[in-house]
C-alpha cells in the first residue's frame, strides 16, 4: 500500500526495501542504544517571564523505547508540549538531561544540534508549512538545507509524497490543500530525512474526525513499516486508544502515571487519568443521567460503573456479592490496544452503603456514578 522504496546513499539510515523494515545495524548511528529511544532524567523546566515564573516540568524521569507509539496526555498547561519539545531542544530543560539514542543532547553544539534535528521529525497542530513554497519545495527543504545533491532530492521527495498519498499535489501551494492534506505534507517533510523519531504536537487537533482517522492510520503505518518511534501529544483520548502502545499522564509538570495504554486506560490509578478518560465513558443513557443524584435517598438505586481488564466478570457472583437485585443498564467491551476491557453500568436497588466494598473482592475497577430515585 505504501510502495516504499527507500534507498539511501548519503544517509546513515538504510531501508530494507523487501520488508520495508529498517536494517538495525545501519540504524544504530550512535553508540549506546538503538535508534529511536528517548530517556528523560530528572528533566525540569521553569519559564521566567515578566508575569512571574512557571514550573512547567518537575523532575520528569521517563524512558521511551524504540519503535513505540508513545502518547503524552494531560490537561491543558500540564507541560506536554514542554516535555515533547525538549526532545529536539526546541526547549532547553532548566535542569536534568534528555538522552536521545544513548547520547545526552544538552552538550551538542550548533552542528550537533542540526544533525540531531535531522534524526527527529516533528509535525504540528497548525502544520506550519511555508506558504511561499510549493508542496514539493516544502518537503525538499530539509534535504536542500542539508546539502543533499539536487539529483537525489527529487526522487526522495517523490518517494515520501507517495508514502503519504500526495503524489498528485507536488506542485500546488499549501493554501490549496485541505487540513488533512496539509498534515500529510507536514508528515512528508518530517520524514524526508528518514528520522528515527517523529514528534507530534496535537497533530490531529485541527482536523475533522475523518481526516483525523486517516492521519492516525498513516502514522500507525509509518510506525509499523519504518519502525519509527512516534511520540504524540493529544487531548483526544480516542487517539491514544486508537494507536498508542504506551502513555504517560502529566499533571502539573509531573508524571501522574505511565504504562501500557491497555493498563492505564483499563485501570486508571490516578485521579488525573480518570478525569481525562471521563469523556470516553460518558455513556449513561440520557434519561438516567437526567435523574442522577449525588446523595442517597430512600429506595434509590445505586449506579456503579465497573471496568475490568482481561477476565470477564461473573454476573452470578456480582448478584451474590451485592445481596440485592442488580439491574444491568449497559455493558460492552472496549478493545484497547488489542486487549479486551469489559465495561458495565449496573443499578443496585436499595443497596447498602457498604455494597461497593463487597463488590471489590470480585476484582475490577468500581466507580460510583450516583443514585437514581426508584421511580419518579
Amino acid at each position, binding site marked *: 500500500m505504501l510502495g516504499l522504496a527507500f534507498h539511501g546513499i548519503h544517509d546513515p539510515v538504510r531501508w530494507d526495501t523487501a520488508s520495508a523494515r529498517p536494517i538495525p545495524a545501519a540504524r544504530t548511528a550512535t553508540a549506546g542504544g538503538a535508534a529511536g529511544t528517548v530517556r528523560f532524567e530528572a528533566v525540569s523546566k521553569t519559564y521566567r517571564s515578566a508575569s512571574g515564573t512557571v514550573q512547567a516540568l518537575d523532575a520528569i524521569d521517563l524512558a521511551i523505547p524504540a519503535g513505540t507509539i508513545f502518547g503524552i496526555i494531560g490537561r491543558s498547561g500540564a507541560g506536554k508540549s514542554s516535555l515533547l519539545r525538549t526532545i529536539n531542544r526546541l526547549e532547553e530543560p532548566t535542569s536534568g538531561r534528555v538522552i536521545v539514542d544513548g547520547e545526552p543532547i544538552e552538550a551538542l553544539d550548533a552542528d550537533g544540534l*542540526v544533525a540531531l*534535528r535531522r534524526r527527529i*521529525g516533528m509535525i504540528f497542530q497548525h502544520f*506550519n508549512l511555508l506558504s*511561499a*513554497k510549493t508542496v514539493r519545495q516544502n518537503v525538499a527543504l530539509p534535504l536542500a538545507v542539508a546539502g543533499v545533491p539536487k539529483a537525489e532530492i527529487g526522487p526522495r521527495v517523490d518517494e515520501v509524497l507517495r508514502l503519504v498519498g500526495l503524489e498528485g499535489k507536488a506542485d500546488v501551494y499549501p493554501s490549496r490543500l485541505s487540513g488533512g492534506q496539509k498534515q500529510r505534507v507536514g508528515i512528508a517533510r518530517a520524514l524526508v530525512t528518514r528520522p528515527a523519531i517523529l514528534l507530534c504536537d496535537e497533530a490531529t487537533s485541527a482536523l475533522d474526525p475523518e481526516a483525523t482517522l486517516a492521519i492516525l492510520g498513516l502514522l500507525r503505518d509509518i510506525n509499523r513499516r519504518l519502525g519509527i518511534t512516534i511520540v504524540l501529544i493529544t487531548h483526544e483520548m480516542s487517539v491514544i486508544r486508537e494507536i498508542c502502545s504506551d502513555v504517560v499522564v502529566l499533571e502539573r509538570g509531573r508524571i501522574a502515571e505511565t504504562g501500557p495504554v491497555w493498563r492505564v486506560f483499563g485501570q486508571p490509578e490516578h485521579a488525573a487519568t480518570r478525569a481525562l478518560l471521563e469523556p470516553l465513558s460518558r455513556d449513561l443513557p440520557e434519561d438516567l443521567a437526567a435523574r442522577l443524584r449525588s446523595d442517597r435517598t430512600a429506595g434509590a438505586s445505586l449506579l456503579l460503573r465497573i471496568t475490568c481488564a482481561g477476565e470477564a466478570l461473573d454476573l452470578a457472583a456480582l448478584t451474590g456479592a451485592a445481596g440485592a437485585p442488580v439491574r444491568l443498564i449497559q455493558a460492552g467491551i472496549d478493545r484497547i490496544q488489542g486487549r479486551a476491557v469489559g465495561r458495565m453500568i449496573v443499578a443496585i436497588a436499595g443497596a447498602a452503603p457498604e455494597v461497593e466494598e463487597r463488590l471489590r473482592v470480585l476484582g475490577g475497577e468500581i466507580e460510583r456514578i450516583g443514585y437514581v430515585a426508584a421511580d419518579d
Partner: protein
Amino acid sequence: MSPQMIDRLWQAGLDTLVMVAASAGIAVLVGLPLALFLVTSGPRGIFPAPRTNRVIGTLVNGFRAVPFIVLLVALIPFTRLVTGTTIGVWAAIVPLAVSATPFFARIAEVSLREVDAGLIEAAQSIGCRRRHILAHVLLPEALPGIVAGFTITLVSMIGASAMAGAVGAGGLGDVAIRYGYQRFDTTVMTAVIAILIALVCLVQLAGDTAVRRLRAR
C-alpha cells in the same frame, strides 16, 4: 506650452525618476537588512543581541522623527562630504535615501514580525540553520508585505523628491516652484501635478499587482 517648457518638464521628470529610483534602491539595500536585524536580534530572536537592538531601534526612530524638510537642511554637510556638492539630483539622493531607509525598515519590520513563530520553529525542527531561516522562511513569507511596504515608500518618496526640488535639487518639484509658483504659470503647475498623479498611480498599480500575484499562492 512652449517646446522648451515641454523639454524642461521631460528632463525634470527624468530627474525625479533618477532621484526616486536611486534612493529607493539604497533604502532597500540598507533598510531590509536593518529590518531583519531589528526582528531577529530581540531577546527571543534567532540572533539575540538585545542591547544593540535597542540602540539601532532608537536610531531608526530618531531619523523617522525628523521631518524631511529639516533633514534636507541638516544633512547638507554630510551631503557635501558624500557627493562633493549640495545642489542637483545627486545631492538630493542623499537626504532622500537617509529619510526613506528607516521608513522602509520599519514597514518591512512589521511584515517580518507577522511571520508566524511556528514557521521558524518548524524550520528549526527540520535542521535549518539561522541563515536558512532568513532565506527560506522570513524573507519569502514576508515578501508580499515587504513589496506592499516598498510601494508605500516609493509613493511617499515621489512626494519628498518634489520637496527636494524646492532646495535646488531639480526634478518636477523644482519646475513647479520656479515656473508654476514664482511665475504664476498655471499650465506648468497643472502639468506637473498631472505627471505626479500619473506617476503615483502607476507605482501603486504595479505594487498592488505584484502583491496580488504573490498572495495568490
